[in-house]
């Protein structure tokens, strides 16, 4: 009987082990902390898309993942402070957008081991990645095809206004990706006989001043305004300044869609920020699964074309049928 009792005890122990083993092996679920820094409210949809996609990938907010969002709206000083704080807090990942914030994030996080995923960042002319296939360091992200968009905007502007030869190009003074875009634009413009007037402004007020000076003496050198991808003209104040100038001078704007009530921009070539956020989320998921950020190839954002027929009508401009058909969205 002792043998039977001993055998029974052995069987019970095995059964217990069978049930308890998975409990012992199960790891406590990790809660990932993500620091998000939005350098420009214009791209805020990126953060929404990012959260949405991670939620779809199974990250439950509050349990599996927590987010800390900071919006600086083009304030480099604060941006650095926020990024440093993220590093001190040892967050699991930093999502930074657009370009200048991404560059700062790369610098601040260097050596901390914290991976950085950038979004809405122009990599051409910026020291952000080593190679699109293998970005290096601890950085990867979603590329904003800046130079391509800049040239595409010029091409569409010429499609709408084929006789324009003088174009005003305002931009943020010292913005890191401007030069790469201008490099692409200049030869295209020269080939079709277009003359650019560049206005490098520090802020909206500076832009207003420079535009005022431009028209002093009744001279108006520009027939159209081209907005290239940069931060000043996608801020409310910046666009208000150029919008007021365009309305006053009856010069159509092209490149970025109108911000505010004034419908002064004929078209916009941009990217879907929410879609960019979703693309960034897929990269973050890979990083959470242990893949080093620097080995994950940079993905490119898709561009889309929007055409504003109301603005076109205001300026007495007819949008070609082909462009209307090519456009992803038409604002009527």
């Amino acid at each position, binding site marked *: *009987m*002792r*043998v*039977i009792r001993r055998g*029974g005890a052995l*069987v019970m122990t095995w*059964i217990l082990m069978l049930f308890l083993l998975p409990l012992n092996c199960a790891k406590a679920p990790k809660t990932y902390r993500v620091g998000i820094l939005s350098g420009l409210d214009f791209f805020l949809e990126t953060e929404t898309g990012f959260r949405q996609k991670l939620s779809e990938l199974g990250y439950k907010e509050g349990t599996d993942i927590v987010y800390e969002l900071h919006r600086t709206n083009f304030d480099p000083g604060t941006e650095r402070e926020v990024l440093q704080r993220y590093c001190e807090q040892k967050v699991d990942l930093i999502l930074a957008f657009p370009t200048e914030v991404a560059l700062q994030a790369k610098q601040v996080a260097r050596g901390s081991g914290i991976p950085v995923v950038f979004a809405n960042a122009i990599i051409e002319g910026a020291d952000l990645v080593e190679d*699109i*296939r*293998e970005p290096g360091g601890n950085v*990867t992200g979603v*590329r904003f*095809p800046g*130079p*391509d*968009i*800049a*040239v*595409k905007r*010029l*091409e569409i502007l010429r499609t709408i206004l084929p006789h324009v030869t003088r174009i005003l190009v305002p931009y943020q003074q010292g913005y890191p990706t401007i030069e790469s875009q201008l490099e*692409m634009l200049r*030869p*295209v413009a020269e*080939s079709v006989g277009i003359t650019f007037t560049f206005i490098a402004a520090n802020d909206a007020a500076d832009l207003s001043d420079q535009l005022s000076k431009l028209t002093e003496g009744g001279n108006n050198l520009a027939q159209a305004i081209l907005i290239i991808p940069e931060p000043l003209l996608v801020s409310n104040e910046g666009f208000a300044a150029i919008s007021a100038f365009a309305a006053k001078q009856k010069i159509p704007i092209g490149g970025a869609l109108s911000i505010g009530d004034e419908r002064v921009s004929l078209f916009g070539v941009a990217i879907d920020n929410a879609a960019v956020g979703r*693309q960034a989320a*897929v*990269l973050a998921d*890979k990083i959470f699964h242990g*893949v080093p950020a620097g*080995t*994950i*190839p*940079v*993905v*490119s954002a*898709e*561009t*889309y*074309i929007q055409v504003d027929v109301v603005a076109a009508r205001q300026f007495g401009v007819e949008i*070609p*049928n*082909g*462009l209307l*058909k*090519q*456009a*992803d969205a038409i604002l009527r």
Partner: protein
Amino acid sequence: MPPRKTHENSPRSLSATLALVFVGFCCLVLVILGAVQLYTNIRLVQESIADRQQLIGRKAAETVQRFVDDKLHTLRTALWITDAQTMGIGDQEALLQSLSGLENSFKRLFIFDPNDREIVTVSRRSQAIEERRACRYCPDALRAVRSAQHYTSSVYIDSTTNEPAILIGVPITDAYGVHQGSLIAEVNLKFMWEVVERIPSDDQGVAYVVDNTGALIAFGDPARVLRGDNVRYIELVEDFVSGRIQSGGLRARLYRGISGDWVIGAGTPLESLDWAVIVEIPVLEASQGIIQRTIISIVVFLILAGFAAFLGVRLARRLSEPIVRLMDTAGRIAGGERAIRADITGTREIVALGEAFNSMTSQLDATMSSLEQQIEEVKEKESALRKSLSEKEALLREIHHRVKNNLQVISSLLHMQSAQSDDPRVRSVLAESEHRLRTMALVHEALYRTDNFAGIDVGAHLRRTLEELMRSYARTDLAARVEVEKVDLPIDTAIPCGLIVNELVTNTLKYAFPEKRKGTITLKLSREVDGSVELIVQDDGIGFPAGVDFRTLKSMGMTIVTSLVDQLSGTITMDNALGTTFRIRFPS
């Protein structure tokens, strides 16, 4: 302290053995049945998984095929409704722009004239930048669409975005079917990724598309596509690339999948494209049915095994109880309780065994009683015999005592007679007779002093005889050397033996050492290898006169010696070399 009895040394009890056998047998049957059932289940589930995977693979292939077919269909439809071959360049450009707006995946669109000259190009990206990028597969496409309904290029990588792309093309023909040009579109396969991601695999399952080199062209993880991963190392992909495709596609099997985990995957090659769609389900998820069935089987097995154990113990107890009772009874009987009988209830065989046991016990009891009685009787007889023997021994001892005393009395009478005679010859004769009687008395003395009446230690007796003679003849100048072994001889041998020594030693004392000559008388007695006894009487005296044969000598002593030797059926020899040595040998 007695050694501790260990469990290993003690034999297992009958009930434990029976229970173990029963439970073991039940478990064996359950295991065999369970294994057969489990194997059957596993086979069924495996086949079901394989079929399911094939189905998912086919659907996925249809989805991917449809992605490309839709693009070709869009191009054909555009040509069908617009009559592109008769359009002007502006309208053709508008057509391409419309197509570009309609289908985001069209990166670039081209219209070529019948001479394969590029007429119009429209791009979703900037034209100026795209112009720098050569249309790598355009010549192939133009050649192909002249003779075929459509063209699909191999997959290539866009150097700007690192994204995979293909070129598709359809011919532009007039109403008579004459070739009027080509409509070519560059398709960004990135848009296929979402399609692949949505392929209804399982929650944990993945689907991906590979081209004919094994390069990954669509996968839920775009990073791997962008990195240009080649997954030919995956067994299924290798089969596809090597052309080892079965009729049903790439059959489902177990392998390490694209994520490095064990998966069950199946693949389906596309109809018109040299691609294959692979769908993979983690093996754990795919095997959930098997695992559930196995767990249920194990639980059922454990319950049944527990039940079998319970039944086994009960049955074993029931079967072994009468045997245990029988064993207890046998133990008690062995302990001396012969009157008790086994109280046996149970199966027929057990009852029969119990009855046989009781019968055997009764017979054993009767036999034992009889034996005990016989033993008692034997003991009583033995006791009587002992008593009788003791009485006879006492009587015999008394007889020997009295014989010895009588012989001593006669010896004393002869001594007294000798003392009254003046004739030395008479005195000598009387003294010799006295010595002979004395020797015989010594034998009887030895016999009544011993417990063994069968024989006496002749060695000791002869030693004593020699000492008595030496003392009697007062020959202090002579030395006696006695080398006798312990030899027990019966009285009818011991007395002649003693008389022989008496005669020979007396002869030696009287004649061998005249004129107070010094010397040694040696007496030896030993048992020979053949069992006979050898007696040696030796002296280093003057020896027997030369030419005298002791057998013919008219001497009383020597006559007695030879007649006693004959009585003993022995032999006697004499050596006269150094003194005199008599060697007598007789059977014991």
